[in-house]
């Protein structure tokens, strides 16, 4: 995260600080180092025993274990989907670890001060502030004091969550998923699996069986969450999958902005990441959910990297409820991800802003689903796909207007940018309209980074990679503007870094 920046003020498009920051960073993947730490692993492979073991490690109640076992049984009956435009060697689900936690986390530390210094150092190195008072130190944010509460997830466990006391005063619950199962079982039971059912899809079902941790958020009725909430996911252990689960409930009239970030060390062997995120939004409530996904993308020959199979869905259950997904997808060898909105409440709104960058041998198949069920519902999709190297980038999106979704509207804008002549961009829109009062608009463009644009920038003194970063950031501007400012800075740099070596 751009927390270490001295200036978090974001101006129009990309600004010079960004270009400067980009210059200061060297190497293509900044987060590829690994933390040497003693780990406790579950035995390799997946079986009912492993599911039971994960549940036991988390000290879960019986109902949670039953839920997992039901999912596991279901998963055994499912087939891995192959409709996405991604091509990868088949995954050996028995050749993975499904649970890995630092030994120092076996006894859960009482406070952040008791957390293993090696873990604290890891997050410090990643630029994630886990010390509450040190947060944004020295930064004069233009709109006064801004705080970000962080839940730090390391492999299979949550290391700690900041600002819990302060949030509790406002009635906000922000904790790790495993704590929520113990401390707020009624809330978890009421909402878990109601947005993404256990049987939803292959990876969601797998996640339901073996998820180890994640974040839980509850914003009570009428509360505007006093700070940004965020989760930072770090995969560190080798041959280990990360399966986290996030559940956010925005009760009537509440508001929360949530950010997630993710990184992993460089490894030669691909690793699996299959997360499930469920958002429940009740009457007049609003959730803003931003992601900067920067998992290790593999090397330029396609060796290693994270296989990222994620199911994210928001259920706008209440009338006039709102959700906004913003994602910057720069990492992972393979991305399979479609953050979706079920617009159930009347007058509910869903928005999806996406930047997906695929460089070298990366493959991304990403998009969204807007399912209009309620009357007068609105959705907006702005997708910017950038392909470079030999990468393939697919936008796949569904807009569905159900019979009762009278007078609903969708606007989709889907732009692809190609750098070089060995990459591909694909747009696959699915549109279903089952009433005659709704309106669906779809616009799509494909363009290339123009040599004349690059020459123009360079003739003014900018280096070639800065020029590409500037042009691409301009292309992504509408989406970058949708991000909270802490992330906008980071995202702009990431856009530049992920495209290093894409020209010349």
């Amino acid at each position, binding site marked *: 995260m751009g927390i270490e920046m001295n200036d978090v003020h974001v*101006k*129009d*498009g*990309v*600004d*010079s600080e960004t*270009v*400067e920051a980009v*210059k200061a960073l060297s190497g293509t993947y900044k987060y590829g180092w690994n933390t040497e730490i003693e780990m406790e692993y579950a035995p390799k492979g997946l079986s009912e025993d492993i599911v039971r073991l994960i549940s036991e490690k988390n000290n879960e109640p019986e109902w949670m274990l039953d839920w997992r076992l039901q999912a596991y049984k279901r998963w055994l009956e499912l087939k891995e989907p192959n409709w996405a435009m991604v091509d990868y060697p088949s995954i050996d689900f028995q050749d993975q670890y499904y649970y890995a936690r630092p030994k120092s986390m076996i006894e859960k530390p009482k406070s952040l001060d008791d957390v293993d210094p090696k873990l604290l150092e890891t997050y410090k190195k990643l630029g994630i502030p886990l010390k509450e008072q040190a947060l944004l130190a020295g930064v004069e944010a233009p709109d006064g004091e801004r705080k970000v509460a962080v839940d730090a997830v390391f492999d299979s466990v949550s290391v700690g969550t900041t600002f819990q006391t302060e949030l509790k005063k406002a009635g906000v619950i922000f904790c790790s998923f495993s704590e929520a199962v113990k401390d707020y079982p009624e809330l978890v039971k009421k909402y878990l699996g109601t947005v993404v059912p256990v049987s939803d899809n292959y990876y969601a079902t797998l996640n339901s069986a073996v998820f180890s941790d994640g974040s839980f958020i509850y914003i009570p009725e009428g509360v505007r969450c006093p700070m940004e909430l965020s989760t930072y996911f770090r995969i560190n252990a080798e041959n280990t999958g990360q399966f986290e689960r996030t559940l956010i409930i925005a009760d009537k009239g509440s508001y929360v902005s949530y950010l997630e970030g993710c990184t992993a060390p460089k490894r030669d062997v691909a690793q699996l990441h299959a997360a499930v995120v469920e958002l429940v939004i009740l009457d007049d409530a609003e959730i803003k959910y931003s992601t900067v996904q920067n998992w290790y993308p593999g090397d330029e020959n396609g060796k290693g990297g994270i296989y990222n199979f994620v199911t994210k869905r928001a259920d706008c259950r209440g009338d006039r409820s709102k959700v906004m997904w913003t994602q910057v997808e720069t990492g992972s060898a393979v991305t399979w991800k479609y953050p979706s909105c079920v617009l159930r409440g009347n007058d509910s709104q869903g928005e999806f802003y996406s930047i997906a960058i695929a460089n070298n041998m990366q493959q991304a198949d990403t998009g969204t689903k807007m399912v209009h069920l309620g009357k007068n519902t609105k959705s907006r999709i702005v997708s910017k796909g950038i392909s470079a190297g030999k990468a393939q980038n697919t936008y796949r999106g569904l807009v569905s207007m159900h019979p009762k979704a009278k007078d609903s509207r969708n606007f989709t804008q889907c732009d692809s940018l190609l750098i070089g002549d060995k990459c591909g961009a694909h747009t696959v829109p699915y549109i279903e309209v089952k009433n005659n009062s709704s309106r669906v608009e779809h616009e799509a463009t494909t363009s290339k980074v*123009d*040599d*004349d*644009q690059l*020459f*123009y*920038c*360079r*003739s*003014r*003194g*900018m*280096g*070639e990679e*800065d020029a590409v970063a*500037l*042009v691409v*950031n*301009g*292309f*992504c*501007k*509408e989406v970058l503007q949708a991000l909270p400012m802490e992330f906008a800075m980071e995202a702009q740099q990431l856009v530049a870094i992920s495209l290093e070596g894409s020209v010349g």
Partner: protein
Amino acid sequence: MLEIKNLHVQLEEEDKKILKGVNLSLEAGKVHAIMGPNGSGKSTLSYVLSGKKGYEVTAGSAHLEGNDLLAMAPEERAAAGLFLAFQYPVEIPGVGNMTFLRSAVNSQQKLRGEPEMTAGDFLKAVRAQAKNLKIESDMLKRPVNVGFSGGEKKRNEILQMAMLQPKMCILDETDSGLDVDAMKLVSQGVNALRDGNRTFLVITHYQRLLDHIKPDIVHIMAAGKIIKSGGPELALEVEKNGYANLLEETA
């Protein structure tokens, strides 16, 4: 300031020779004009000097204050003090004009190892220069050249030139697409930058621009060569008689 010797250039993609031995010597502080018919190689000369891809230099040299221009990347040439005002300035969607300018100024300062301009000083400088060129603040916020009129694009080039303070300015048909008022404004902008040290190479078809930007020396270029050089009166001669006579003379 700028020494061009026996410069031969052809297109990279096809075997087409464009410059066939250009010699030019520009002393510091002078304004040189190059006139010539279409296809004589004027724009190619400006592109080759600023480092555009697609051209192959088969012989000759170009030095800026003794530095070998042809061995430098385009951004290094810019940092060394070379500036090209484009005939067709390029649009960059989504990138604010001000952002672009700041990025350009900072990049050059960084390449030269100078401290960066503070945001405050930069803003002050841009506002002052924009005022001289009658550039509204709205135009500074809009994306670079997107939706700009012909006149706005050219004024924007001069604004960049004023902000970057180059030593050697090449103006490639800056008068094309300008009405009389816009040409005056642009010329005023250029003249304001004449300080006895800064050198200009003004490429144009027409004498009328040279009424506003008074040249010290005028060169006539045809078929990839400088065929005649002289004082400002040479431009008037071209205006009166066209290129035909000159071409015959040298043929």
